[in-house]
């Protein structure tokens, strides 16, 4: 509910607000041109990565809204998801049913773990982000204890390639295939696939039509900036389809069901913001003190936000692993936190503010940089390793700078308020 938005286009404002996105766009373009990767490969890789990572990144929005900051504790949720996948892989439940079952199993685990994480965050107010990092290490220790030691030892498993040779503890890598077949790999993705460009083109067309329709109905002047990007996208789709040399590209398929689920989460996030709970999230995120005086139960509200985030992260990890197909048993979940956080920050979010567009745009940019870094590094420096180090540097650097800016703003605000 803000004051009326001016309809004019202020280039300087746009630049200032989106400086991070622009920097990374440039970085991506440089990387793409340097790496010399075929565009078809890039796009198809990108589609894959967006499909499997967006959900995780989106799960970060609600905690930011509620003032809990960047929830590095989503790693804990990812562990819940993995635990469920381990179980259904062992029981041999394949395909989409396997995915549904793992969601059913993961959710209560994630709710419990999220509740614990929230308790921790409520006790470490002001330091949630480092508490989240450390708790992810701590939880990994416990996770390792269970799966390296208890499983196979105290809890016996039979007739499965998942166990280590000596029978105690799971292997380091588990394929999502089970003894019965492909397992849950692509269980979600392959449910239904459409040509990417049909999908994008149709979506772009629909958005444009909707915007024009709304403007006509309200008898308002339409801001061209709100149509041009979609028109461009639509034209791009048509061009790709028509150009013979782009045939490989033109045949890239998109996993519709997965994308629908991601869209559903976006929809859910928007809806929650409109409820009383969402309004409470915003209030608590802006000022815990004032919210408390107004009678809002601050700790409980934060707890709900963290639990939702953890549950979403558990589902997100399931989506991730069904696409990747193999689980790095002891490591898959660790990077989840950093990568998701870096992605949403690159998309323009901050510790105190995050929108859906930040998540989606950020995921696209982050993974573009990710894809091209090794080959770009090789092209530029003769060493692919440098590219990999560079992208890790970017991840930590983005997080560090974002946290630094946030801390600086907080510190200057405190000085103004003083005693």
């Amino acid at each position, binding site marked *: *509910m803000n004051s009326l938005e001016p309809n004019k286009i202020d280039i300087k404002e746009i630049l200032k607000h989106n400086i991070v996105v622009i920097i990374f766009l440039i970085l991506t373009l440089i990387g793409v041109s340097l790496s010399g990767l075929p565009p078809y490969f890039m796009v198809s890789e990108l589609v894959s990565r967006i499909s499997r990572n967006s959900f995780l990144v989106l799960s970060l929005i609600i905690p930011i809204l509620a003032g809990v900051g960047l929830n590095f504790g989503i790693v804990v949720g990812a562990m819940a998801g993995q635990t469920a996948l381990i179980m259904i892989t062992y029981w041999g439940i394949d395909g989409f049913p396997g995915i549904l079952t793992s969601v059913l199993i993961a959710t209560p685990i994630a709710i419990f773990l999220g509740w614990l994480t929230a308790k921790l965050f409520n006790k470490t107010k002001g330091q949630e982000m480092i508490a989240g990092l450390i708790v992810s290490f701590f939880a990994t220790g416990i996770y390792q204890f269970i799966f390296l030691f208890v499983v196979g030892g105290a809890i016996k498993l039979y007739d499965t390639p998942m166990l280590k040779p000596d029978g105690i503890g799971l292997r380091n890598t588990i394929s999502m295939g089970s003894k019965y077949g492909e397992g849950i790999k692509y269980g979600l993705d392959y449910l239904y696939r459409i040509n990417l460009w049909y999908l994008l083109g149709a979506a772009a067309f629909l958005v444009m039509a909707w915007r024009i329709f709304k403007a006509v109905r309200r008898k308002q002047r339409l801001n061209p900036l709100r149509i041009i990007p979609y028109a461009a996208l639509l034209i791009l789709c048509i061009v790709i389809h028509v150009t013979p040399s782009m045939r490989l590209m033109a045949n890239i398929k998109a996993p519709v069901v997965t994308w629908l689920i991601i869209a559903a989460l976006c929809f859910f996030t928007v809806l929650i913001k409109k409820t*009383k*709970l969402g*309004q409470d999230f915003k*209030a608590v995120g802006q000022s815990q003190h004032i919210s408390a005086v107004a009678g809002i139960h601050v700790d409980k509200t934060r707890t709900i936000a963290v639990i939702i985030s953890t549950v979403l992260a558990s589902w997100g990890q399931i989506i991730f692993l069904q696409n990747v197909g193999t689980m790095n048993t002891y490591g898959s979940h660790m990077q989840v936190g950093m990568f998701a956080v870096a992605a949403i920050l690159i998309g323009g979010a901050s510790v105190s503010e995050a929108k859906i567009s930040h998540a989606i745009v950020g995921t696209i940019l982050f993974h573009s940089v990710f894809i091209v870094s090794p080959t770009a590094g090789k092209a530029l420096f003769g060493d692919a390793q440098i590219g990999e180090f560079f992208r890790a540097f970017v991840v930590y650097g983005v997080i560090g700078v974002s946290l630094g800016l946030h801390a600086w703003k907080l510190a200057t605000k405190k000085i103004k308020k*003083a005693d």
Partner: protein
Amino acid sequence: MDKYLLQMINIKKNYSGNQVLKGIDLSLKAGEIHCLLGENGAGKSTLMNILFGMDVIHSTGGFEGDILIDGKSVDINSPKEAMESNIGMVHQEFMLIPSFSITENIKLNREITKGNPVSKVFGERLKTVDFKAMNEDARVALDKLDMGIEEYTTVAGLPVGHMQFVEIAREIDKSHLEILVFDEPTAVLTESEADNLLKTMKKLASQGIAILFITHRLDEVMTVSDKVTVLRDGELVACKKTSDTSVEEIAELMVGRKINIVMKNKKDESEQEILLDIKNLHVEMPGEEVKGVDLHVKKGEILGIGGLAGQGKIGIANGIMGLFPSTGEISLKGAATALNDTTNMLSNGVAFVSEDRRGVGLVLDESIELNIAFTAMKVDNRFMKKYGFFYLQNGKAMKQHANKMIEDFDIRCTGPRQHVGHLSGGNQQKVCVARALTQNPDILFISEPTRGIDIGAKKLVLDLLLKLNTEQGMTIIMTSSELAELRSISDRIAIVSEGKLTGILPPDAPDAKYGLLMSGMKEGE
């Protein structure tokens, strides 16, 4: 016969042994504007905190007495329950979320919601917020206050006067609001904004709302109120119809008291030499701003600085000592001296005992000996042994000195290494004074010297200050909210109101004069 809307009967409150309210009665009728007056510590805020169910009351043992609304006894244990009893409060510190709109602030945690499919399953909190209905309500409230501003404007960036009106709008939006409490509302307003507020109060009263108005501005009291209640030291001093009294009478009631502490024997004409000359001092201390003070301190005198809380008297010492950004001109011992330079002041023989004993005056988790020695260590390199380029703490010297101080001031402790945080308030204060005196200063600034200390210790501290002044000729500038103690040992007393000096009086000047100066009326008005 009008029934009383609110009755507070024989209210008593005790904060760990300190009887802050000693049996207060207060009654309010619908449509009445009732002013509540008193010095700091008189009990006004405590009384309002009780009425509004604030946690600070209930987590410290509750209160005694009864509250009746419309003749029925009520039990108010939280702000929410106060709200349910139709009591609203406009706080001194705004409870507004800057990035929210006016509507969202007015409706904070009272949002209007509509059911939806999800909420039927998952509960109340998932109902959709009905912004349209909320905006309509907000509009109604704003219109009642003649505020033309759009209800969906963001609060951040609104002028302070408007923000206050949003606070009020929030309260009157609460249906069935019958009693509205204003806690020093005009403190942050400009003159025209304050006038506007008073007009609005009258309007609300005419609509039947009973208003409790805490202020120290006597002119406002006379302008707008129907009745006045004066509190002093936790007791009800008077409750009068405004039409039956005058500014002077109220001022005297506020201030006058039996003086328990023997007045100092006035010494003969003190030296006229000016030790510290302060011109046009402005200090940005949040809550105690100084807005242009001219003052000179004579050598060998005890100068008292008094005034009501939040009026700036505390800011003077803090500003001169460089703890908060200041402008102005000061000259010390005849030489122009820089402001905003703590070290400069300290090395020029000026010592400071802060009003914030635990926050500024002490390091609670450290030993008595370190606390006492620190400033002298930093400024004069005392209690240090030199080893080439480095100074190392001289533990033995520190301990010796601390022991001497413990003996001289009778500091009750288990030894010089005990952590200061474990001492009683009075003994902590002695440590603070010891620290300042360790510097062997020429001038001592001491603020709120006996705050939170029992009567016996109070006398000790004041006697000590007197002794330092008469025997060692130390110039002392004592800032205090307790007029009585200022009058008992000062040679002159300056009163600060709204950040400016309103006058300087001798200790034996009549109570009424003090009261007037403290309410902002300059000498001669």
